[in-house]
């Protein structure tokens, strides 16, 4: 064969195959062996190893952190401590922010009225848009400003790969890739980022499993919701001395439920529509590194806190406006908000929630961060709660006026954990899979599971515990 006449790619592939046949069997092994020999020689000449002390402290820490018996409990304790610090630390600033924001709302609305601005414009701007923003900032900013730096420290220390190491065994049992533990850990930051992180998984099947189940760990946007629910509702049923511990414990419990669902759903997918075995991989445990203080502050406050907050603000302002409109357009004397909430009420009741909560979830589809503020605004817009300036007052009013029970709070946490991913995550699933089918499954499967689980807990609680 000569190169001077036209050569088609198929010719080349055929020629290569022929040449391969002519070579001795195992020629490639020879090349690889010589490569290994070469690398070893170069290393021996270049590296001066004075008794190679492996980082002893590192090894001793790893011995404990990744030990068979202590690894997982220690992980839970670390998680609980972080949530506890967040809950205790965020309480007071949250109250102060809320008080300041709502004081200003009344003041500014008063000015508008004095200036003769029409009532609907004042209402729309101050009791709609502004109130939405105020709720988002006071409920979300303090926990985020405490939680994210702590989370970033863990990440920079090198603890997350150890978490993956501890969980690898469980993922393998579920038929999923061990590296899914990494993308799952990343999902605690942001589910969309967790889904991008699944690119480290080679097998398309295992990658899809990781993408479809990433939503089951609560992201940054949902943590404030969970923390707030745990603080205001679950912990309030206990004496003040242990309240913050109970709150931290229940957030850890919810995270565990999320991990459990990740594993169970991965297992189910691996045995049904994404059948297959788990593949092996190596996971490198990096040395512990001292986190850089300035970088932690930058990453956690600018990249994370402000990023999440800004996104929440962008969606909260229009959501506030929508809610105000729903509440103040009153065909036949009944507001649209009330009509919709009443319509959704039977469904809400069946899963231990109510119509207002479901309406809030629908309005908050663009960003999960704003579910609780949206919910509160819908309650308030119904005219039942006109003044609200403290989180305690909030609890009293919800419990007394709207019949919230422990079941409502627990199911709301479960629903928030399991329901459909936010719009950004859904778009990311599409970008990564380029498949409308998997995107639909990724969006609807969690929603179905959320309804099923909350329905079951509601039915059980009503049947056996008299809720």
């Amino acid at each position, binding site marked *: 064969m000569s190169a001077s006449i036209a050569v088609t790619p198929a010719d080349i592939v055929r020629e290569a195959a022929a040449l391969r046949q002519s070579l001795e069997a195992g020629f490639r092994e020879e090349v690889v062996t010589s490569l290994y020999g070469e690398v070893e020689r170069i290393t021996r000449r270049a*590296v001066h*190893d004075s008794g190679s002390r492996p980082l002893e402290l590192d090894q001793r820490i790893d011995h404990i952190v990744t030990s068979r018996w202590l690894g997982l409990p220690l992980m839970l304790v670390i998680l609980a401590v972080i949530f506890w610090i967040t809950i205790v630390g965020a309480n007071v600033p949250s109250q102060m922010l809320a008080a300041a924001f709502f004081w200003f709302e009344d003041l500014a609305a008063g000015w508008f009225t004095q200036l003769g601005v029409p009532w609907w414009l004042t209402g729309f701007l101050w009791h709609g848009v502004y109130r939405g923003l105020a709720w988002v900032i006071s409920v979300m900013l303090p926990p985020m400003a405490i939680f994210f730096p702590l989370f970033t420290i863990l990440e920079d220390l090198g603890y997350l790969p150890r978490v993956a190491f501890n969980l690898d065994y469980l993922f393998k049992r579920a038929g999923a890739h061990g590296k899914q533990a990494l993308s799952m850990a990343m999902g605690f930051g*942001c589910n969309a980022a967790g889904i991008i992180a699944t690119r*480290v998984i080679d097998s398309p099947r295992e990658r899809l499993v990781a993408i479809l189940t990433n939503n089951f760990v609560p992201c940054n946007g949902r943590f404030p919701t969970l923390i707030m629910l745990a603080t205001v509702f679950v912990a309030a049923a206990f004496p003040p001395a242990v309240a913050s511990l109970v709150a931290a414990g229940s957030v850890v419990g919810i995270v565990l439920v999320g991990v459990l669902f990740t594993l169970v759903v991965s297992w189910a997918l691996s045995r049904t529509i994404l059948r297959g075995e788990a593949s092996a991989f190596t996971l490198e445990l990096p040395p512990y590194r001292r*986190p850089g203080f300035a970088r932690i502050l930058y990453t956690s406050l600018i*990249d994370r806190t402000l990023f999440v907050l800004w996104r929440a603000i962008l969606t909260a302002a229009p959501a506030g406006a929508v809610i105000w409109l729903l509440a103040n357009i009153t065909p036949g004397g009944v507001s649209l908000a009330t009509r919709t909430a009443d319509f959704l009420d039977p469904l809400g009741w069946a899963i231990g929630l109510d119509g207002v909560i479901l309406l809030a979830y629908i309005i908050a589809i663009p960003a999960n961060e704003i579910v609780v503020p949206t919910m509160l605004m819908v309650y308030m817009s119904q005219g039942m709660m006109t003044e609200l300036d403290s989180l305690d007052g909030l609890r009293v009013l919800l419990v007394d006026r709207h019949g919230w029970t422990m079941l409502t709070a627990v199911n709301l946490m479960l629903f928030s954990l399991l329901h459909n991913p936010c719009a950004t995550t859904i778009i990311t699933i599409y970008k990564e899979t380029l498949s409308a089918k998997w995107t639909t499954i990724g969006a609807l499967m969690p929603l179905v599971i959320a309804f099923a689980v909350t329905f079951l807990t509601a039915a059980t609680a009503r049947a056996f515990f008299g809720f």
Partner: protein
Amino acid sequence: MSTEHACETCPMHTEMAQLGAAVGGFDRVVALAGNPNTGKSTLFNALTGLRQHTGNWPGKTVTRAEGGFQFGGVRYKLVDLPGTYSLLSASDDEEVARNFLLFGRPDCTVVVVDASALERNLYLVLQVLEITDRVVVAVNLMDEAKRRGIDVDTRSLARDLGVPAVPIVARTSENVMVLLGEVAAVSAGETVTRPLRPKGTPEFERAVSRLVPLIETAAPGVPNARWIAIRLLDGDASVEEALASGRLAELVARQQAPDARFSRKIALQGAQ
């Protein structure tokens, strides 16, 4: 920070400038390759002034990030590739790295290696050397290695590999200016490298040299026909497929265009 003052008066500083995420107007392209968790992103941030998130875990950078810096009056575009152990398998991140080295034709590729784990890191170095000869090896984390009682003789390393090797500590920017000096010389073609390429058996080399001219005729403009020939002899299905479907040419073109999966936002925020 008080140290900033000393830096501003240092003559080196006037030579180097971080260009952040500036786009366009670059004179040369430099790629950053390396195993996961060797501090590539740290070096990337130190050079560009960007703040790509540098979590201490393997597989942090899953898409390539780009930034710019200026050194010695030349504007460089720096491309941070995903960390990989090899360039052979077909996982997404390895393919991103491999395709960029093959078809993006960087003027220089900096392979960042971990001084404490040199042996394991060298496999990737040798694979990169198979693809391109414009390589500088940055032996990073020298401080960590010293604490472990490990010292790396970079002169011996450079002699064996046939390309410059520079010891650095990316976290504190120690010796980074020396590294840039080597990058400048290699990318300008002033330093002529003689990369180590383990030769196969004579029959193997004969087979390679028969394929190379064929590949060059069938797909004009394809860089590094030798590498493709080796992959074909190896029976690499993805390369066979790329050649047969004419996707090789397409890949060449696509690597010149900005990667659709890359956005400035990801570069700035990391993957969150």
